């Protein structure tokens, strides 16, 4: 269990960043958990909403609270985000709260990479729209929207914490590929002004 005894984990690309016509930045290492089970079950709902200190997100939405977030991933899956400093305490609380074998959780903190696209709202949406077959228009992808899709050739998810910012999560093994795609999409001179 080197992840418990070894040095603190680092983000996949060491916090890489690129300033193009929007800024692409890898997020610092956070804690991330996948929760699976019946989303109407009180035990799962209570544990998830308590740990993120938010209300239960609706279908296709994410409930945000600073560095904490709870996202609706599928009809039986939630994604819980927390600061790394709370990792051990969240693990302990999930372990204690989800003792029903039909409710599962797994620590995916070190299995994922996270990026933030920030800048002028229209351009941020445009960079995301270059890479995924998703409607990122301000009327469709509103703050609090959460959308799983593909980024180029790999699976990923997008959410919108507020105007001028879109966050991306993907598997850590493809972090470099996704960062390269985002960097290329944000290259100065490649503005499309789709949502300008």
């Amino acid at each position, binding site marked *: 269990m080197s992840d418990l005894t070894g040095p603190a984990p680092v983000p996949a690309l060491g916090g890489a960043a690129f300033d193009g016509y929007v800024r692409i930045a890898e997020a610092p290492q956070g804690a991330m958990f996948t929760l699976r089970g019946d989303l109407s079950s009180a035990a799962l709902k209570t544990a998830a909403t308590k740990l993120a200190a938010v209300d239960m997100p609706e*279908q*296709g939405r994410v409930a945000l609270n600073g560095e904490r977030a709870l996202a609706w*991933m*599928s*009809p039986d*899956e939630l994604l819980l985000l927390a600061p790394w400093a709370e990792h051990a305490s969240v693990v302990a609380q999930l372990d204690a709260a989800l003792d029903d074998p039909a409710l599962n959780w797994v620590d995916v903190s070190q299995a994922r990479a996270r990026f933030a696209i920030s800048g002028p709202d229209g351009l941020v949406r445009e960079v995301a729209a270059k890479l995924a*077959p*998703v*409607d990122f228009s301000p009327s469709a992808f509103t703050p609090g929207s959460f*959308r*799983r*899709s*593909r980024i180029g050739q790999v*699976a990923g998810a997008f959410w919108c914490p507020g105007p001028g910012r879109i966050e991306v999560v993907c598997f850590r093994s493809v972090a470099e590929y996704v960062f390269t795609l985002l960097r290329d999409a944000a290259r100065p001179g490649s503005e499309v002004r789709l949502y300008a």
Partner: protein
Amino acid sequence: MLLLDCPCCGVRGEETEFHCGGEAHITREGPASDDAAFEHYMFERVNPRGVHFERWRHVAGCGKWFHAARDTVTLEIWGTYPAQTTRPPEEVLETIRAARPGFKWRDIA
């Protein structure tokens, strides 16, 4: 390009987000079945020009399987519906009957 509405997560996605799982509503014959029935289940698939019922999976999204009724020529989608059924819902069939009068797909018409 197909635009599919995933009935599991409510997302309207484009076909590269999905993966087709072949013909829908196949009765899976078990060891107790006779050879003809098993052969029919194992090998015989329709490849219609027109109305078709298929299984699809929202691979890059919620990961769930569902059914889609579509036209293989015009790429129209008549409807998507949950995987937990052995027959298309009546409202999807009504839509198809209105657009393609007299259509027949296996024993569904």
